[in-house]
């Protein structure tokens, strides 16, 4: 594989690979560093990339594995437990559209890691379930279950915030 082919067949997935790193690491600088590391490794082993059938799945799996390794080496930060009270931003602030988007980004980031990865692979990257299953090394059924849980959780939080906003309006009008 030469430079032109590397550009065409590997770098065309750059954005998706980077977003995988960003979703897992939740840190732009770390994601950028890891992305560059992966690209360099892939470039050095480019001759072995020719025989790969599903390059996208392979690349996303590679990125995911690198992120898992990186996270294992770092001090453990607990994910927010399921029963934590959602304080959220002031509903009045939610009315600002840009804050709404930041808030939703935060909601997605607060999902358990597997649900977060799967919902982004499905709804941001628009991949099929079978491909997601390959990337995260799960059965398609397990992917569907995680997706369902992620989306239900988001719906609950959106509806809860909607109620909070109504109550806030009621209280302060």
């Amino acid at each position, binding site marked *: 594989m030469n*430079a032109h082919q*590397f*550009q065409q067949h590997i*770098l065309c997935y*750059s*954005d998706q*690979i*980077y*977003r995988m790193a*960003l979703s897992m690491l939740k840190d732009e600088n770390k994601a*950028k560093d890891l*992305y*560059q590391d992966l*690209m*360099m490794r892939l*470039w050095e082993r480019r001759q072995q990339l020719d025989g790969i059938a599903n390059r996208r799945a392979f690349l996303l799996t590679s990125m995911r594995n690198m992120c898992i390794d990186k996270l294992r080496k770092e001090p453990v930060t607990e994910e927010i437990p399921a029963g934590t009270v959602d304080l959220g931003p002031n509903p009045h602030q939610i*009315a600002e*559209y840009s804050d*709404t*988007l930041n808030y*939703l*980004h935060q909601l*997605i980031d607060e999902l358990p890691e597997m649900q977060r990865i799967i919902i*982004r692979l499905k*709804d*941001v*990257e*628009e991949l*099929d379930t079978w491909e997601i299953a390959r990337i995260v090394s799960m059965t398609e059924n397990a992917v*569907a*279950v995680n*997706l*369902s*849980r*992620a*989306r*239900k959780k*988001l*719906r609950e939080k*959106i*509806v809860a*915030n*909607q109620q909070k*906003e*109504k*109550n806030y*309006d*009621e209280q302060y*009008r």
Partner: protein
Amino acid sequence: MTNNIDDILNHYFEGISTAGEDKILKDYFRGHQVAPQHEMYKPLFDQFDQERESMIAPRFVIPTAGEKGKRRALRSLWIASAGVAAVLLLCILLLPFKDARDTQQEYVVIVNGKKISDPQKAKEYAEAMFTQACAIKKENYQSLGKAKEMQEMYNAAKIIGEAKKGTYLLTTRNQ
């Protein structure tokens, strides 16, 4: 149509929607005729679109230098960079920052690489382009404004009709 969307939305949140249904939902939320009861989900779909479009990978430069020449190339790079840095420093300290072209004239218009030299024509062109930009913004903001208006109206009706019930629910939930 609304019933259909309700069904698809339910499938979506249950995680059992098909690819076709997902597409219908995304097109629906990208349009400007989102029903009031669905408005609260629009930002979620916008968030997915925004992530896809704004989270872009940094540029990876394919390395070209061979192993043998690496050290020599690096040393030359240091020396060259020092020279460039010195020149840049001088430029920054001695030369003004602003583009002289811009500050001397009221309107500067360059179309497809060619500058419009007639000041009156440049002014007319500039005004037409900024007006077009404002018109596009206005047209798109209208849909957002309408959606917010409808949401407020909906809230007002609910608040007036169910104020006590809402308070009751809040009280029981906090117990």
